[in-house]
């Protein structure tokens, strides 16, 4: 249920060959086939030329900029999930990208595994788990309608925000969710925080989930957190 398979086809519109190669090689490990367009004009025609599972668009491109491609794609009726790459200071391009119909954005420079995680999350969003009413991992049941959490039948009292984080983990098991992704998803924070707020929230959530909370939501050094059902075994990190 990772949502990433050998058939995942990704179009990367990126003019910087180093970044493009980095993404292509990094995603190859995840079984994603990356096709690269190195300018905006080719990018648009390739994006319209066939069905893509995911399109990753750079903001600044020769020929046609990412925002224009995005707008044209959405106008042409394309519903492919699109991840927008913005520069570090791109306050307005972030807003513009989301308004223009991007599904997610990533600030450069980024780690390819963060991109992979975001792709995984995106693909699941459009996948079959979209319409379930309850999520289940390792005896934990999250009732999505009543926003209630039980573990082995016992009710766990969680704050609404904690339910939201837990849902994020449970919808994306075995996927490393970075600190930035958690901040962004749960609080819409896309600026650097100098306090260990994510850590404290996760540690509270773990405590409430039970004695094996630490095994359930594992810390991956330098990458983030991953929810693992220890009964199902483990996947290699990274």
């Amino acid at each position, binding site marked *: 249920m990772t949502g990433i398979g050998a058939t995942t086809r990704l179009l990367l519109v990126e003019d910087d060959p180093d970044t493009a190669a980095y993404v292509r090689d990094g995603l190859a490990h995840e079984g994603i086939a990356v096709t690269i367009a190195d300018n905006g004009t080719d990018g648009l025609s390739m994006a319209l030329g066939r069905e893509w599972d995911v399109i990753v668009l750079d903001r600044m491109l020769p020929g046609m900029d990412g925002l224009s491609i995005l707008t044209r794609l959405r106008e042409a009726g394309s519903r492919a999930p699109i991840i927008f790459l913005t520069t570090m200071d791109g306050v307005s391009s972030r807003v513009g990208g989301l308004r223009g119909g991007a599904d997610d954005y990533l600030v450069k*420079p980024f780690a390819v595994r963060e991109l992979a995680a975001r792709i995984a999350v995106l693909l699941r969003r459009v996948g079959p788990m979209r319409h379930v009413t309850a999520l289940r991992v390792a005896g934990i049941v999250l009732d999505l309608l009543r926003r209630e959490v039980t573990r082995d039948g016992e009710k766990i009292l969680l704050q609404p*925000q904690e339910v939201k984080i837990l849902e994020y983990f449970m919808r994306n098991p075995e996927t490393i969710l970075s600190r930035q992704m958690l901040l962004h998803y749960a609080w819409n924070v896309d600026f650097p925080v100098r306090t260990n707020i994510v850590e404290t929230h996760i540690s509270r959530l773990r405590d409430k989930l039970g004695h094996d909370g630490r095994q359930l939501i594992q810390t991956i*050094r330098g990458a983030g957190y991953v929810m693992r059902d220890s009964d199902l075994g483990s996947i290699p990190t990274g």
Partner: protein
Amino acid sequence: MAAFPPARGRAAAIARVVSSLSFRIVILFAGFLMLSGMLVILLSGLHSQRSLQGQIRHAVTAERAEVLSAAGRQDIGHMLPVIRNLVRNEPAFFYLLQDASGAILAGNMLHLRPVSGGRWLSWAHRLPFGANDIPVYGEGVVLADGGYFFVGIDASPLRRLRHDIRAIMIWSLCGFCVLGIGGGLILSAVILRRIETISVTARRIMSGDISQRIPYQGTDDEFDHLAHSLNAMLEQNERLIASLRQVSNDIAHDMRRPLSHLRQRLETASLAEHTSDGFRAAIDDAVVELDLALEIFSSLLRLSRIEGGIATDTMVPVALDTLTAQVAELYRPAAEDRHQALIVGPVSGTVDGDPVLLMQMLSNLVENAINHTPNGSRITIDGGVDGDRVTLVVADNGAGIPADSRERVFHRFVRLDRSRSVPGSGLGLSLVRAIARLHGGTITLSDNRPGLRCTVVLPHIALSETLPGGMRNPPGNSQEA
């Protein structure tokens, strides 16, 4: 060609002197002094001459009247004895009596054309004796029987006066010239010294001593005013240079730390690690270090972008109570871990703004309070509407910031000494202020007795305006919900 340079050099030197301000001041000064001196002498000379002429005329008129009255009647018969008698005693006047045919009957001068009224005579030969070339002024009367009577006086004092005036003029011209050149030199020396002072200061500043200032004369004159303006400019420049220098130093410093850690880690790993897991862990750590460094750049760029102003079409109505609750929820666990109380008071009001930036602003303030106050501190968030303004107050009861540093902490990379141990880039408050300003607001720091009180004031928008577009969802409900 080779023979020309000295001449050309001299010509150039002359041209330099002529074009110099000093030369022009001297010429102008001397010129005007001479001109005004001339004018004074000329006027007073003309006046003296006129008054002397007046005296001469008066004397002649009086003498004529006296002679005529002594004669009784204006004919040759009556006048002849009177004039003969007058001429006999070496008179101070010249007399002449001619008959109708022009023959001289009596007098001490030669023949004249019979013309009545005042007249000037300067023909020496008209005078039979005495000085040869003295000028004479006199008056003639044509008598009833055709005779002609003339009485005149020696007018040489007038000539002497003219001569004297001319002499005075020439000498004083020389005097004024000398005085003018001297005065001009002194004047230009005074002015040039002031200019040179400014120029010397400029050269010192250029040679690196940017703390140099132009000295004041204390005369409060135009030069002092100029010096004042220039010094103010230099002050401003020095501040800018200092802040630039500070920023580059700090960037270098802040970058070097994570990068040198990174280097150490990688070096250690390449020497010590032998397993791929070990390498992976080392690389992961290295990436974290690198991210810290990149984050500083990211914040700097974002700061510049915000200070430059971003498109206002990203602005939506943001309710401050939701925003505050959001931030408090985000930071409460972190505060509780430090046994700090994070208390949210009643907050109301709506502002037009970028929700994420406003959240960053409030988050930075709360984060500062958490990071810079000791365990067990109390942090409060309050706010309210005051007319067309909304205030948002984040206060703590920690150590606070000394009054003299409260402006400085808004500058980029400024970190107070005692907070050096706390992680941070020194950009937080710069960003807070930039965001507040972007939204047309202000931020002020004050004493919370004890602690720090950060007051953000933003323009309030009336709630009715926000309804048609609908309130934006709380920032937490991102597009992934």
